[in-house]
């Protein structure tokens, strides 16, 4: 379902961060911010939580490592033990390199997959730009606009005073 947004654009990321801080200090909720590059200081200004991706990495890494060692142990000790140069069946030290590689492989793939999943990015996903230039040179703040939900006038004033170059209303999906 299409919603309405109030979108303010900025040329400078410093002004953008200032605007986000001001807007939030006045009790407005930021829907999202759009930028052609990551803007430093915006995480704090928007009050974003730390990403939980590292937990995915850890879990997948542990699983990858355990699976690798289990496979190597099963194959070399239980399923078909071969005497190679008189080495013991359970040559655990020799199993380390492959366990390491599979740890990294599982952790890396899972982290990238979790990121894409959480961000809703997949091949062919429809792009919903907040305006022209947000992937090029423009920074934009979007506030969800519901009739009577907030004082549009005040929000406009605050955004303009923080250095917005343009403010408009947009109906659609973001």
């Amino acid at each position, binding site marked *: 379902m299409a919603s309405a947004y109030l979108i303010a654009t900025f040329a400078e990321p*410093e002004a953008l961060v200032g605007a986000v801080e001001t807007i939030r200090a006045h009790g407005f909720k930021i829907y999202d911010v759009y930028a052609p590059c990551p803007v430093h200081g915006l995480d704090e200004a928007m009050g974003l939580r730390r990403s939980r991706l590292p937990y995915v990495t850890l879990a997948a890494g542990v699983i990858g490592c355990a699976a690798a060692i289990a496979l190597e142990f099963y194959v070399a000790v239980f399923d078909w033990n071969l005497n190679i140069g008189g080495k013991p069946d359970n040559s655990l030290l020799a199993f380390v390199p492959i366990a390491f590689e599979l740890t990294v492989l599982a952790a890396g793939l899972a982290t*990238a997959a979790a990121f894409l999943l959480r961000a809703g990015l997949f091949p062919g996903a429809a792009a919903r730009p907040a305006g022209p230039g947000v992937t090029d040179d423009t920074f934009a703040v979007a506030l969800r606009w519901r009739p009577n939900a907030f004082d549009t006038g005040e929000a406009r004033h605050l955004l303009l005073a923080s250095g917005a170059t343009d403010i408009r209303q947009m109906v659609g999906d973001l």
Partner: protein
Amino acid sequence: MIRFDHRVDRSLRLQPRRPLIGNQALSRITDDVARPLEARPGLGWCAAFAAAATALSIGVACVAYEIATGIGVWGLNRTVGWAFDITNFVFWVGIGHAGTLISAILLLFRQQWRTSINRSAEAMTIFAVVCAALFPLIHMGRPWLAFWVFPYPNSRGSLWVNFRSPLLWDVFAINTYMTISLVFWYVGMIPDFATLRDRASAGLKKTIYSIASFGWNGSHRTWSRYETMNVILAGLATPLVISVHSIVSMDFATSILPGWHTTIFPPYFVAGAVYSGFGMVTTLLVLTRSLMHLEAYITERHLDAMAKVMLLTGSLVGLAYGTEFYIAWVSGNVYEQATFIGRATGPYAWCFWTMVACNAVAPQVLWSARVRRSPAALFVFSILVNVGMWLERFVIIVTSLHRSYLPSSWVMYRPTLIEVGTLLGSFGLFFTCFLLFIRLLPMIAMWEVKGAHRARGAASHG
């Protein structure tokens, strides 16, 4: 009446309103990077592509002949069972290391200068690993059975692969390295694909960029996670890249052959890999910056920084050569001593001394800042690095094998034309891929350059 927050007053003071929507410095970066993708290729690019494609065709013909006829078309014999192909394998894997070093390790060290070269260095990594993987594959003789290297339940027993063998570790290391590098590279390009999508007018180009950009719209919630993911992937890639060349070195070090059986190999190979990789990055970037007119992005400062890395790693490699000889001398092992004396004075001594000249002596000219900042001088030097590091692998492999414990087995090894053609073909494959890359994909990470530009701007204002 609205009462302004003090932050608004501050921002009003610092940020005068601009008549323009958008930031000119940022749109300039987009234009500069996207321009080569939207224009017709220049004469220089076409000539380079024709040369690379010719070399690739020669390689394809040589490999086809080798597979149809058998490994006998190579100069290998019963004493020297590994030579040209494994030299090429180790050479190309080493080349790949610089890409990961630039994109992952320098990211963790917050080296902002990496931003304009990391995309092309990562691309180089991937193409180099493809070239590397080709050699063990064709050395199998029956490459259609290559899937036997993977541990899967099979109708032969199940007769599993040998997990104690460094050759199998190699399979896992190279495949993991390839996969993680590819993911890191692709995910890094998603924001830039979105930029290109929004620039393209309707048509095939827009459709392709739309699919490739995964619906990216620059949301900061996504950016925030994206940066976390990039740091995690960099943190994973860093030990990975060190493990890859360490494992490659164990292919040799775990054997009992004098000249191979040394504990110094893992760090020595990693230093050599970084040295050769930076040599290749320098070769490519000196060419690319003039072919694609990107002197403003790939500056002399970049060349200077890469030259310093080569000075360090080249000197490390020189130290490793010396250490190997010293250890052979004090080991009291006559076989070890004979191998090293043979290396420096035997029939392949010219390879050895060329290697020492290129890898240990030549980098010392980089103490001079004038040389480090001269693209022409660095280009010549980077060719020496490539030659020297290729010869290093040849020297390690062939001089150790051709005269080992049993004098009745001593032979000489000479590559056949087919082997030389295959090496030429791998260069053709590498350069064909790289030239296509700089034409079809954004070879400079726009979003990273923009971020670094902003960070620099903020620092100079503050």
